[in-house]
């Protein structure tokens, strides 16, 4: 995975904008007037495969790199999910879990992966 060795030799590119249309991303509306459980139903159903793939890769990371500390943190959090996941996020993840078929505990770990990663 050796990269280019400093000092920096690349140049500032021109003419990259606009990129091809196939690099645009889809858009979804999140209606905050809906009950939290219903806000993510469409996205959860449409993207359940992608979410599952991300979670699988993150779990591999936790198993391979997590050693003692992260695994014990995840266990602690899982036991205290009701207390560490404030409203409306808990209800939203519940809705997402129902729509995607993914367990809420796994979705929660995904959503706090930034904090886990900084460990």
């Amino acid at each position, binding site marked *: 995975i050796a990269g280019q060795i400093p000092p920096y030799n*690349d140049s500032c590119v021109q003419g990259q904008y606009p990129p091809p249309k196939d690099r645009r991303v889809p*858009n979804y509306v*999140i209606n905050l007037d809906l009950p939290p459980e219903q806000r993510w139903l469409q996205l959860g159903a449409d993207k359940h495969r992608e979410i599952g793939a*991300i979670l699988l890769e993150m779990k591999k990371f936790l198993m391979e790199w997590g050693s003692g500390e992260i695994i014990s943190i995840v266990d*602690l959090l899982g036991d205290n999910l009701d207390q560490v996941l404030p409203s409306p996020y808990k209800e*939203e993840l519940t809705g997402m879990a129902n729509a995607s078929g993914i367990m809420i505990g796994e*979705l929660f770990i995904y959503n706090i992966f*930034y904090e886990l990663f900084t460990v």
Partner: protein
Amino acid sequence: CTSIVSQDAKGNMYHARNLDFGLFLGWDVKNRTWQLTDILRPAIVTLDWQRGGKTLFKSVNYAGYIGVLTAIKPGMFTFSMDERFNADGGYMGILEYIRDKKGYWMSFLSRETMESAGSYQEARDKLANTQLIAPAYFILGGTKPGEGCVITRNRHVNGTDVWPMTDSTAGGWYVLETNYDHWKAPLFLDDRRGPANKCMKAMGVQNTGFAGLFNVLSSKPVLNKLTTYTALMQVDSGTLETYLQYCPDPCEPW
């Protein structure tokens, strides 16, 4: 990650960012890519958060992620966050949180800020003065010339540094953050700051806009094999454009 808040010659405010993620999370030897980075790209979506049938704010998310990493509140402010590695990181923060229930998960604080803050100043104060579980860099842009800053956050609010774009050590007409404290040199193996500043100066204030900023963020190693997307935001128009990014060889792995 690389985040930039910049103004053009007329004082219009722009905010652009690369989101890089997946370091050390599996290297695909055959394709020379990071496995998680590849998996994240198909999950990228833009979200239009609405209340009362009207847009409250827009964000770029990975599907399944309900917090906010990149967002625009039209006519008010723009936001992005970059990861900050710090010895006093998430481990202690999570343990403290389990014990005391004090502090915010980063992405929930940013989402709450997008939902509730009514101005650049209000967002800046909330992001600078709320206890967090893990350190982070918050990059914030406003609507007026000079309204742009990098908020370097510890878990606790003591030690918070707010670096405005008007500071002589910033660009003057822009401010740029990667993943290192602005008062320190970046890791020599991961210097995206220098190349990004070089490209910003080459672009100049007169060429600031979506095209110019996209070129800067498409220049290697600012663009690298961890880059999943580039987002471009203009606060007055409320425009958010998001593009998947790929970095074909030769390309730096981070």
